[in-house]
């Protein structure tokens, strides 16, 4: 099975700063997504990372706050910009492989704490 590596696994950041989270997959994927999981809550889709073009954001999420890149079929980054304590969450990368486009697999998540 494929390996989905997400870095960093956790971080504590000062408010007003930015953090970039990386998601690397060891095989080509069809789709890549970023989710946010606020403390004790469910997962909410932030955006679809599109290869070589701008990400597609869900309602309530904007590019200025969550810029996303996807330069190739196996790698994506999510940046959380100008952080505030409300951004403290787990951020998860999710991928769909060509062989099964109805199953989503997840990275191990990044636990972000903003102080």
């Amino acid at each position, binding site marked *: 099975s494929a390996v989905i590596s997400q870095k960093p696994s956790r971080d504590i950041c000062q408010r007003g700063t930015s953090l970039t989270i990386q998601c690397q997959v060891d095989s080509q994927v069809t789709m890549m997504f970023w989710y946010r999981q606020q403390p004790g809550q*469910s997962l*909410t889709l932030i955006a679809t990372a599109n290869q070589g073009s701008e990400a597609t954001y869900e309602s309530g999420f904007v590019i200025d706050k969550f810029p996303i890149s996807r330069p190739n079929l196996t790698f994506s980054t999510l940046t959380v910009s100008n952080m505030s304590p409300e951004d403290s969450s787990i951020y998860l990368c*999710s*991928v*769909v492989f060509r062989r099964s486009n*109805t199953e*989503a697999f997840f990275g*191990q998540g990044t636990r972000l704490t903003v102080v």
Partner: protein
Amino acid sequence: AQTVTQSQPEMSVQEAETVTLSCTYDTSENNYYLFWYKQPPSRQMILVIRQEAYKQQNATENRFSVNFQKAAKSFSLKISDSQLGDTAMYFCAFLAGGTSYGKLTFGQGTILTVHP
């Protein structure tokens, strides 16, 4: 748009017993898929079981089975012979067919605790 509802914030069960987690959903789609994911304290989201809406037969994976009632839009998860390692948050999730590849809508989650 679709919604997924898990009405049980927390459940507990004794080791070796059976527990059922509830999930209801609302959609106007005819082609869709339903999933149960497990999230242990490690944060890793693990796919437990999936069900295609066009299949009438309920999915089964070892100790995990579902009761899929399409007309009632209900999708419950039964865990038999519960083990301590089943302790986790469980999420019910919905995926519309067509071009929504991998774009999941999650329920609120149910925290399951298995007691020795």
